[in-house]
């Protein structure tokens, strides 16, 4: 049976529930149906000959040899980070993870989003140290080699730029892909040394309440971090998805503050100064502060709050006619685990709980999925996440009403995609 016939076959055996959404239990019983979305996936080529008539040429000749560092399949070469170089400052700005072209929850290292303030430094790890000083009894320096001898932890966490989804403050919905809208977001397995271990060895004095972190890039990017976070789940990350952390992510080490806005996870970390108060660094005054309509701005608002986005289907994909589709997306919260993601296919009139693909981890991306029988009529898809603290994603309108019109940091409102009768997908505000 040809692959693309599968959806039709399943359609006949799948009982429908309201609005064409297929119940979660039914879906689990029916087994793997992800193939149904293959038609709208990226970069998937279809053979003109039906499978099975003739062996393809790659079965009749030896395959190629080994390589030192493997590359993705040739057909995947369009799966790239998206970025626009800024004239006069090529190393300043951001590149986005193509969330709509990826599956699961772990971001491949070469596709982790980037935000740099003056380029990626080419650091000689042998000449790099992490200094801890200020309000400590024993100022200490740790070489990379030294840190490698420390007890390590491995945890999966997302990193999201505070400016992610910033275009949602615009009057009109930006017609771009799910990655274009939300791709300042990635998730990795990080391995490193607990920051608390190092601070304990330096013996932080009682007055030490803030830790000023500084990078070794040519912007010497600097941020103030509360001591409570440093002593909780903060990590000096040395590895990312099993290999040494990439230069774009802070080689040889970065500060990882799970659930906090990306910028404070200082890359190329070289110095931690313990102080009594935060310092109003440029990136915690000029940037990443929340301006409200009365002219006051919230400062030191670190949490990336509960959020979700559907990535399949999304703009750039075209539905291949009525029938079975899997709606899938990502949900996350800087406060802990995602406990629930509800999906609507009718612009919010009714909601159905999506299945959360295990493992559902704290401060990590969670994949949600829901089977959908599309009847071919226009539909507005939305997702709404809830986290373990009970926080629920707000509507875009309620988020916007809190802030000045220029404010765009920390957007976590509900997002929508309009599936048109012709199968195209448009970004809509809901």
């Amino acid at each position, binding site marked *: 049976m040809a692959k693309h016939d599968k959806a039709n076959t399943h359609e006949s055996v799948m009982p429908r529930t309201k609005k064409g959404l297929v119940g979660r239990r039914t879906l689990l019983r029916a087994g793997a149906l992800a193939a149904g979305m293959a038609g709208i996936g990226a970069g998937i080529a279809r053979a003109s000959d039906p499978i099975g008539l003739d062996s393809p040429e790659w079965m009749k000749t030896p395959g190629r040899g080994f390589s030192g560092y493997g590359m993705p399949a040739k057909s995947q070469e369009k799966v790239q980070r998206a970025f626009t170089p800024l*004239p*006069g*400052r090529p190393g*300043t700005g951001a590149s986005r993870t193509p969330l709509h072209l990826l599956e699961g929850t772990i971001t491949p290292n070469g596709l982790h989003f980037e935000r740099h*303030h*003056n380029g990626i430094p080419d650091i000689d790890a042998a000449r790099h*140290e992490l*200094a*801890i*000083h200020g309000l400590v009894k*024993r*100022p*200490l*320096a*740790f*070489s990379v080699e*030294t840190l490698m*001898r*420390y*007890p390590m932890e491995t945890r999966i966490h997302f990193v999201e730029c505070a400016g992610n989804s910033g275009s949602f403050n615009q009057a009109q919905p930006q017609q771009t892909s799910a990655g274009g809208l939300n791709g300042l977001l990635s998730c990795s397995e990080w391995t490193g040394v607990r920051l608390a*271990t*190092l601070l*304990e*060895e*330096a013996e932080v004095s009682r007055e030490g309440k803030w830790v*000023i972190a*500084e990078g070794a890039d*040519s*912007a*010497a*990017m*600097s941020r103030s971090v*509360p001591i*409570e976070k440093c002593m909780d789940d903060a990590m000096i990350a040395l590895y990312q998805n099993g290999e040494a952390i990439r230069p774009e992510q802070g080689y040889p080490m970065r500060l990882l503050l799970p659930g906090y806005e990306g910028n404070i996870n200082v890359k190329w970390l070289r*110095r931690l*100064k313990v*102080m009594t*108060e935060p*310092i*109003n*660094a*440029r990136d915690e*005054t*000029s940037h990443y*502060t929340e*301006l409200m*309509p*009365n*002219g*006051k*701005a*919230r*400062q*030191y*608002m*670190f*949490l990336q709050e509960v959020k979700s986005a559907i990535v399949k289907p999304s703009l750039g994909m075209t539905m291949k006619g009525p029938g079975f589709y899997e709606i899938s997306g990502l949900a996350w919260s800087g406060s802990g685990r995602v406990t629930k993601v509800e999906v609507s296919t009718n612009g919010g009139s009714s909601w159905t709980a999506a299945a959360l693909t295990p493992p559902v981890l704290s401060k990590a991306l969670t994949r949600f999925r829901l089977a959908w029988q599309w009847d071919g009529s226009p539909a507005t898809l939305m997702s709404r996440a809830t986290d373990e603290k009970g926080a629920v994603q707000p509507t875009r309108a309620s988020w916007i009403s809190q802030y*000045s*019109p*220029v404010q765009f940091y920390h957007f976590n409102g509900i997002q929508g995609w309009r599936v048109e009768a012709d199968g195209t997908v448009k970004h809509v505000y809901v």
Partner: protein
Amino acid sequence: MSTFKFGVLLIAALFISSASYAQQHPNLGRPLTPEEISKLDITVAPDGSGLPPGSGSVSQGAKVYTDKCQSCHGPKGQGGPQDQLTGGVGTIASAKPVKTPVSYWPTATTIFDYVRRAMPLQSPESLTNDEVYAVTAYLLSVDAVIPQDAVLDAKSLPQVKMPNRDGFVRWWPVPKR
């Protein structure tokens, strides 16, 4: 429990906890000397701690600005291809806020700290401390935050009253809703 037994238990408890401390704490850090720290530490705090010796006037700063900053940030900090640095004072609570270092940043120490560590973009750390004081003074003079004859140093810089100095609400710890 007798005092003796309690004492034995206490000693045992101390022994166990120090053993586990030693296990979790490799203690491999290299002690940093005061000289090393003073070379490394470029953090300037709002109270002025960390500001280096030196000084700079508005007129000296105007020259530094023209030579090193204007091509990116435009004359007097406006209209250049990169970020606007001056103006916007009084707009922050309006429907069209113009956020600049002068109109938005709460402390003048932030300008010094940022310029010294990160500017000019093509050659960070190339300005002398006197030049950083001077160019900070110049930027603040454009909107008359400080007078034209002002000289900034470690003592006067933290005392500059920024237009938006009361504009920020600390959101840590997160207020209970």
